[in-house]
């Protein structure tokens, strides 16, 4: 299986590559449109700042390539945010795969610390309520047996709950901790840093 990891100016891409290597997959790190199109699976990872990341993607034409991919694509953290329509971070238009706006967390009480950092739990939205999913395409890396399990987050911006939400996590308010639409999947958390649960999610994605 050919797995491509989108190369762009986001930090900590190597943790995703290490995680794939631990699973016996040797991914290709690339920003070549042809190599991305030819891969069986594409992972769009990263940590970073949204407007800088979008600028890099536009310069290389990847803002057109990524939404047009037809194989399974997994966005991670800033990857999920960039797959939405717009981000408050740097007030930038993004890839528009998910019909959602990325917002900054606003603390309500003193205990609400920003960034949301640490282990938090997943609430799986069952497939029947995931309105954007077609009946015949009822596949998901976010399976019911992940209900209540903990994954690792580091982020200051979030995607509100919307029709593409696959899992919900609560921090200050309920937000989209994972999303899914057609062949596009995304996690706000870092599966590559989420121990055995994260590895299960990555494996589920690779097995799609």
């Amino acid at each position: 299986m050919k797995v491509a990891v989108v190369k762009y100016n986001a930090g900590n891409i190597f943790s995703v590559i290490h995680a794939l290597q631990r699973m016996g997959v040797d991914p290709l790190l690339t920003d070549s449109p042809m190599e991305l199109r030819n891969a069986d699976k594409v992972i769009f990872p990263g940590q970073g700042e949204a407007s800088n990341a979008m600028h890099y993607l536009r310069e290389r034409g990847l803002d057109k390539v990524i939404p047009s991919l037809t194989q399974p694509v997994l966005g991670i953290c800033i990857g999920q945010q960039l797959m939405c329509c717009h981000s408050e971070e740097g007030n930038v238009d993004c890839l528009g795969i998910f019909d959602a706006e990325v917002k900054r967390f606003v603390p309500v009480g003193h205990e609400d610390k920003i960034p949301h950092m640490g282990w938090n739990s997943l609430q799986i939205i069952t497939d029947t309520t995931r309105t954007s999913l077609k009946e015949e395409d009822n596949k998901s890396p976010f399976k019911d047996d992940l209900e209540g399990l903990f994954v690792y987050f580091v982020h200051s911006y979030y995607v509100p709950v919307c029709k593409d939400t696959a899992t919900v996590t609560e921090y200050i308010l309920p937000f989209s901790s994972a999303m899914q639409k057609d062949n596009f999947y995304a996690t706000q958390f870092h599966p590559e840093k989420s121990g055995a649960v994260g590895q299960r999610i990555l494996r589920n994605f690779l097995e799609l």
Partner: protein
Amino acid sequence: MLAKRIIPCLDVKDGQTVKGTNFLQLRQAGDPVELGKLYSRQGADELVFLDITASHEGRKTFTDMVQKVAAEIDIPFTVGGGISELADVERMLSAGADKISINSAALRRPELIDEIASHFGSQVCVVAIDAQQGEKGWTCYLNGGRIPTDRNLFDWAKEVNERGAGEILFTSMNHDGVKQGFACDALNRLASMLTIPVIASGGAGKMGDFRDVFAQGHADAALAASVFHFGQIGIPELKAYLRTEGINVRL
């Protein structure tokens, strides 16, 4: 709900883990990568690796170890010890560390915190504070608790927060190695005045100490070394216990 974190700390010298009692004596406790993997499997939420080597060769060995940890361990980890400028931070992050911890360097030149936060993001920057409670209140120390400063713990913690650190790792020198519980009063005061998470360190002796540091000290995470290294407390039993005590931990 966000879980309270349990963090084993591994002091590393020349590629081997060691742990001091009251910062002075050192005892041998194993290979850092293997020990880190074991803790990860047992349910540790993060790991901290502190380089206590002074030599240039030791630093190189530590960087190699960080690369191995990044390749083999699938939970977040922080590295500290000997980080005094942006180039050190860059080297550790390139080797695969998720966060770096600075201590004396921040006290000597507080602007380093602003620089790390603006270059790499606040979430990368953990500021460790070693402090001792004496006649003049809580005083911060340099060089692993060897040199006192004129800085007050609470003033310094507030400044660290305002300069853009992502977390504070507070070690009470009065409690460290004594195994009679964490400095819950000071921790509670830190938690109520800061807008960033506090990791409590120093004093873990029994499971009830961890309950107290979360329930009374309001710490976001608890760090310990010897109780884990020498098997006095197992992480799975500790987390099961905390759950029954009503503390939200990842199981």
